[in-house]
């Protein structure tokens, strides 16, 4: 029974799931500051990055109003220069610590930078990210090496997901990247990936 005091406010949030049917209609008029504050509170409690659309629905505001409010909030965080930042990740918003303080945070959490993928897994992930949906033989074609164990690792780490069978001979399974991939690599969406052609110039010259 350590720290029972913490329980109470948490339950306030978690449990008490009686329907909040009151006033669904009475559209509240909120100031811009209020919209920002509520958006901030909800982004904070959300386990996953939350989209402007989802925020708009909860607040019963227009999506553009929310988008503007969160962008303003993001700017405010930036200017404050505190320990936190608001980021756009996997199509949604998220509050996270600033990279500058990773050392201290890590010391506190007692973690090392983890989740280092092997070179083989990273290569396989790169091929899947750019060629999705893509099958195992297609990956082999590009990498020149069997990628089975790398694919298994990526599946287990939830960085990739199956994308149905390809309608060709043998109906091979197709793979694509997951939402976790976007989150773990800090991408807004797949279009946030630099284009593969950008690496083309590097390819010849780097040698």
């Amino acid at each position: 029974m350590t720290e029972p005091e913490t329980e109470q406010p948490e339950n306030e949030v978690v449990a008490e799931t009686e329907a909040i049917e009151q006033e669904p209609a009475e559209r509240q008029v909120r100031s811009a500051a209020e919209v920002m504050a509520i958006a901030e509170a909800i982004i904070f409690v959300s386990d996953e990055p939350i989209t402007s659309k989802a925020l708009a629905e909860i607040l019963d505001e227009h999506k553009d109003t929310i988008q503007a409010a969160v962008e303003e909030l993001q700017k405010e965080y930036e200017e404050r220069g505190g320990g936190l930042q608001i980021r756009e990740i996997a199509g949604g918003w998220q509050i996270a610590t600033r990279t500058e303080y990773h050392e201290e945070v890590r010391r506190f959490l007692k973690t090392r930078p983890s989740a280092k993928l092997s070179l083989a897994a990273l290569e396989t992930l790169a091929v899947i990210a750019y060629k999705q949906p893509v099958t195992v033989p297609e990956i082999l074609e590009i990498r020149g090496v069997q990628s089975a164990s790398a694919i298994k690792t990526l599946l287990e780490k939830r960085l990739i997901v199956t994308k149905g069978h390809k309608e060709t001979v043998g109906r091979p399974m197709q793979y694509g990247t997951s939402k976790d991939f976007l989150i773990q690599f800090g991408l807004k969406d797949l279009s946030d990936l630099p284009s593969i052609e950008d690496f083309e110039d590097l390819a010849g010259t780097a040698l």
Partner: protein
Amino acid sequence: MQETVEQFVFDFHKETAEIVGESKDEIKLKLGEFAGPLDLLLYLIKQEQANIFDIPIAKITDEYLRYIRLMKSLDIAMAADFLVMAATLIEIKSRMLLPRDPMAAGEEEEFEDPRKELVDQLLEYEKFKSAAQMLYERSTVEQAVFKRGQIESDENNAEINASVFDLLTVFQKIVLRHKEQVTMEIEREEISLADMIKALKKRIFDEIELNLLTFFEEMHTRRELVTAFIAVLEIVRTEHVKLVQKTTFGDIFLKKVNAPAAEPAGS
């Protein structure tokens, strides 16, 4: 033509590893860095400071084979793909040695460089290698960013965000479990729930954390398994013990906690 034949009867075992000046471990380390035959090939080309569009194929092939032999001599298990590439290189090398057919090689018909396909493959591969590097850098930055701590008892719920892959994996596990149960149904003294809980408690307190799968695997009969399962539910409900899953979809562990245990997963 003599050389050509020689290349095709190439014998790995006859050759001796020639790389000197490096300790076994260092080489091992170095070899371990190659993600595949194309990776190794790019490395060798870079080493030779050769132009990728005009690969000195004989030299590179020799180098490549030397590495392969070295891997073999060091007993490094090698993907078959490394050998496939060796064969490809040897084949290109031999084709390069063939004199051009003066009849076929007219001005209008361009001479097809035997290296072309390989070069294309290397260039394509190199792009993804760079992309992999980019992903690596991104993940490094991402690892310097932390999300807020738990504000709810999510962790205690041991919930799983499932994909189709999980579905199949779980199904396979059940089927396996079921099979084992059937084969293990032999007569045995039954253990009571109270004894099971006692035994389980002791295990958790002795071992701090207990892999559930391991624990269940120790059961000999289906009834024992059911008793064990109920014991786990009971212990999670009444004791300061929680179910944790370290890696998503990894094994589930029973762990002693100081905080009051939450309700068991509400299946």
